[in-house]
């Protein structure tokens, strides 16, 4: 039972991080119609961002640890968002048709960012000392404050994103562009700006994911390879283009993966995730929340 609860808690954390990546993928697919293979690299850069500000160049060392940590996360998000917007505007947008071309271009961006991180930061795993020391004791299950903080952080970012997309004018414009970009343009929505905003927001939340969870595991140039694969699985499971679907998919994938790795074996987990993905495509190709186009 203890193992079960422990695994459940870890599974929830893994699912929430996955959700941060999957939502961004989904947003980019919905609005820009791009399968962005480079998306995981923004998660990786977010992890390196906090490492840079907290370990490599501790410029916030004078401040209380928590404040410094939050500022580091926010700055990383902004920097990564800007990188993402540059990539979208100058690299993706000129080659949007046909869709295979932009997919290959995004692979190129992925390779470049990975290799650039390798050259800049080296292959050695980086760790960040978390400002949240200690454990929470819930009955017989102990859970580190660090992980609890990551869970809360992920929930906050998902909530903010929900409010932006569901409640603001900008969010409304984004949904309009996702539905029909030409019709949206006719209504006076500047699609180019919406593309930039969507890419910026997606990259920022991916970076937030990396910044929150990176320190718990490890930070290295290849840290996004597995999460991005699982995030793709989550997006397919939920239905390409559906944001609630992406979150639900992230939970199904995250929990399955954590439980299978704990009870069966780590190598097996990814295979199971893959089989689920294939299974869903056979039974319901549009995913759990998707609809026919």
């Amino acid at each position, binding site marked *: 039972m203890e193992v079960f609860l422990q695994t459940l808690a870890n599974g929830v954390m893994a699912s929430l991080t996955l959700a941060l990546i999957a939502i961004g993928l989904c947003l980019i697919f919905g609005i820009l119609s791009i399968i962005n293979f480079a998306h995981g690299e923004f998660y990786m850069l977010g992890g390196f961002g906090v490492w840079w500000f907290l370990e490599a160049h501790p410029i916030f060392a004078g401040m209380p640890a928590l404040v410094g940590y939050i500022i580091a996360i926010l700055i990383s998000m902004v920097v990564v968002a800007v990188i993402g917007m540059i990539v979208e505007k100058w690299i993706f947008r000129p*080659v949007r048709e046909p869709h*295979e071309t932009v*997919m290959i271009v995004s692979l*190129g961006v992925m*390779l470049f960012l990975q290799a650039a991180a390798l050259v800049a930061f080296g292959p050695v795993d980086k760790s960040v000392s978390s400002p949240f020391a200690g454990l929470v004791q819930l009955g017989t299950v102990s859970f580190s404050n660090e992980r609890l903080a990551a869970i809360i952080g992920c929930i906050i970012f998902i909530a903010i994103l929900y409010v932006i997309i569901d409640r603001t004018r900008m969010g409304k414009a984004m949904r309009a562009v996702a539905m029909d970009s030409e019709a949206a343009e006719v209504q006076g929505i500047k699609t180019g700006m919406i593309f930039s905003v969507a890419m910026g927001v997606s990259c920022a939340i991916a970076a937030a994911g990396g910044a929150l969870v990176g320190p718990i595991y490890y930070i290295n140039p290849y840290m996004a390879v597995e999460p991005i694969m699982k995030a793709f699985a989550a997006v397919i499971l939920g239905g390409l283009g559906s944001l609630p679907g992406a979150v639900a998919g992230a939970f199904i994938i995250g929990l399955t993966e954590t439980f299978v790795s704990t009870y069966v074996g780590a190598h097996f987990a990814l295979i199971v995730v893959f089989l689920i993905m294939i299974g869903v495509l056979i039974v319901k190709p549009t995913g759990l929340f998707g609809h026919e186009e």
Partner: protein
Amino acid sequence: MKNNSTTKKVIIAIVGLAAILLPVFSSDPYILHIAIAILIWSMLALGIRIVLVSGHLNIAQASFMGFGAYASGALAMKLGWSFWICLPLAGVIAAILAIIVGLPTLRIKGAYFVIITLGLSEVSRRIWMMWDSLFGGPQGLLGIPPPDAIKLGGLAIMFNSKVHYFYLAFVLFVITVFVMWRFEKSRTGLLLKSFPKADMLAESSGVYIMKYKVAAFALGAFFAGLAGSFWAHYFTYCSPWDFTLMASFYMLMYVVMGGTGSIAGPIVGSAVMLTLDELLRPFKEYMPMILGVILILVLRFMPGGIISIPGLIRDAVMRKE
């Protein structure tokens, strides 16, 4: 027009002859090894291209190569089967796998297929790592036997020198090119090319597009399986680290660099890029970065690839005159 096709034939004949005679000019094992790599990587790149022309992106080509290599290696080592049986079987196994993966995913447009192939490239590596008894785990299969000698009258090909492997690779390469060429010229091939442009139209005119897409994917995987089998017996060794996503990216880059418009594209791409790769060996660690930039720049500014350069020059000259 006729003139053009004659030129083409002459070029093919000259290049083919040069290739056949290569071992006569140079018995340097290093040169022969690169030549073998070019031939084998062209087979793999051609397999990616045939799927790409139907509007789908396969980024698990290295996995199919790996399944061919492992199937062939395991059959030869565990059951003692001859290479000449393992080779075609490796291709068939890779093709069956492609059909299993392709059937549920090629039904739907674009995105799903590429994501599934991305997943496959990682999952296949896990399978080889996990399955110690059959695939040797992380260290892979060691001591795969070389192909059995062929006796043709008095001539015996023992496969004890790179020259013999070169000719075997050359034969496999020629078969691949011939089959790809026939496939593309056939009704199926012409239909395939229409799919990216008029998927719905083809479907509504009664063409069952799934069948053709899966056929193309399976064909590409078949030759990847052959290439893998050859590679395993040539190196007498294969490991999970030989058939990674990165290897698939390289193959994809050869296709994009050479140009997707014709069969010659991936071959030229493989030849140029593998040679370049050897020349740039001192900068090995920067290769993925260079590769990424090349992919982005070529698709943006020269979508026709290297093969389109003569045409571009001709156009430029014409415009000046």
